[in-house]
């Protein structure tokens, strides 16, 4: 409990220092930035040293995130409602014309085709790398959601949908083909 409090305090100190850096103009921000990242690193090191490498890293991630939220919340700025619409500084999503087949193909790429491409890469990894069977299976299994997520992000964004189609189908053919060629 004491160690966790210290880890959380370290995370809070780091976030507060980065916040100070963020509010400072010019070269004066450098020491605060360094101090902030050093405090994060110290909190992480303390967590690992006291709770072990496995648990410590994830305890630190959790507590530093919450400490940072608290620091962000402390800088809350209350604004008055304006009559006129405020001009947004944020970019707007692109307005692109779409047809039914492009929309269908886009979601097929993000869904089943992306899944099979991800599986192709995951299975390729586990068949073509060395090490314990269990380790290759688990890492190959972890590759699948990461690659599928990346495929989703890419294919839903890319305006050139046929390029994405060709690439993903190529990945499926090569991933599964080379894996079946070698075997487990």
């Amino acid at each position, binding site marked *: 409990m004491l160690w966790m409090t210290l880890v959380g305090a370290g995370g809070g100190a780091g976030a507060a220092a980065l916040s100070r850096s963020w509010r400072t103009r010019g070269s004066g921000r450098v020491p605060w930035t360094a101090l902030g990242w050093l405090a994060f690193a110290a909190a992480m090191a303390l967590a690992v040293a006291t709770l072990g490498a496995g648990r410590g890293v994830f305890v630190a991630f959790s507590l530093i995130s919450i400490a940072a*939220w608290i620091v962000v919340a402390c800088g809350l700025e209350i*604004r008055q409602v304006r009559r006129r619409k405020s001009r947004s500084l944020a970019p707007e999503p692109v307005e692109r014309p779409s047809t039914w087949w492009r929309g269908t193909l886009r979601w097929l790429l993000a869904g089943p085709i992306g899944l099979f491409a991800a*599986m192709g890469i995951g299975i390729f990894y586990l068949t073509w790398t060395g090490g314990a069977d269990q380790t290759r*299976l*688990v890492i190959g299994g972890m590759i699948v*959601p990461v690659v599928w997520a990346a495929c989703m992000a890419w294919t839903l964004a890319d305006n050139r949908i046929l390029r994405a189609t060709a690439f993903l189908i190529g990945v499926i053919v090569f991933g599964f083909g080379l894996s079946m060629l070698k075997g*487990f």
Partner: protein
Amino acid sequence: MSGAAAIPGKKRKPLLSRIPTGFVQAVLKGHSGLGIAFAAVIYIVCLSGTLAVFYDEFLRWENPDAPRVEAVSPEAVQTALEQAVQQAGEGVEHVYLTMPDKDRPYLRVSVDAAQESDWIADGAGDLVAPMRDAWSEFILGLHIYLHLPATWGIFVVGMTGVALLSSLISGILAHPRILRDAFHLRIGGSQRLQEADLHNRIGVWGLPFHIVISLTGAFLGLVTVTVGVLGLVMFDGDTDRIYDLFLAQEPAENPAPAPLLDLAPMFAQLPDAGRIDRITLEHPTEQGGAALFDFRNDAALAETASYAFDRGGLYYAKGAEDFTFGETVLGSMGPLHFGWFSGGVIKIAYGILGLGVTYLAVGGIKIWLARRRDKGRPAPGWERVWAAVVWGQPLGLAAAALAALAAPAAGQGLLIGVWGGVALAALALAAALPAAAIGRWGKMLSGAALIVLGLWHAAGHGGLAGPALVWIVDLALLAAGALLCGLALGGMRSARQRTVAPQGHP
């Protein structure tokens, strides 16, 4: 940033600001589309997941009279086993003995026979009461498979994890002001700016947590499909060969009747390998019976050792040094996903972070709706539907918990019916009420239901003499209920002021 004007010469733009606007807009389009498609299911999975972090606490809350047991002797475990098997009668397939620890201070015995039974035993091993777990299992089931047919439900939840992970990738790529806005939190003024600030600050500062839960959730949810395809492609459809790599060796089949397995000599042979977490017995009343002891070291994330005995003695031993890296990673997935790895502080942290990720889904849709309104293309129908989805859930979950309290012997069917019925009724209200009214009444009714739940439980279960943890859960329910009612009342007051003085500031 007016100070920048005073700096002479041309200043190089920060790296993230150099990302082409067209790229950011395209990624934002994908982020928005994915969020809209998955928002409701992400919201339900994350909200139920936040509650599932406190699974052990809810189990304790459902069983306030369970005697506190911190450690049990091998004799007590054997007594509990004998009594549970005797109660179950014929056809015992498996028995699961969950050993007491800090988060579960009781001995639990579950018997998988013709009729399943689940018991709490005291420190001497005597069964004292049936285990009540309707609400705890309901919330866990909702998170893991949405109470759909299990295979499909788990896949849908796994796909939701992938969608969340993908949203994190596109969300970061679509946020070139990530550093410039790192600490901005502006409330009031433009609703779109307010929601964008909340969405981005919660998303960015909680990023490690969001990656951990989405990746582990997606992995666990996709295991069946991944193993199925792998088995088909590489093992001629034999997926058992993959599972066998991770599971303890099965005992040899021999269905001839035999006396109940005696655990005492097995306990005597166990090495000092940490704390026994669970004992799984296979066919304990057959000649082919066996017992698997799983150990846990509280300093580690995953299980640390497993030993299995049949009637001939120890036949399977796996110490900490025998676990491959892959097995350790796999064993860590569940604890990391649910926050079950470092006691109460991390559970509370996961609860707060879980509410944050739940709000990402809520706020994402609010940004989309506010953007449409700003552009002169409001979607009041979708605003009402989204308000009904958001506020139907806490009300439905609170109603399901009330049902579990009112009818503790009822099965999952009642709770699913109550939760689903309330969620559908809220959606039906979207046809009649404006979004703001749905939000206000949703908060008020959810808050009232939580207050009733806390008071009813406190009054009827254990009284002041009950365990501290049970009182903490009751107080948390009352506090959450009071907060929601307070927010609803504040919203109603603002709405009245707007009605009375439409020209003034609301």
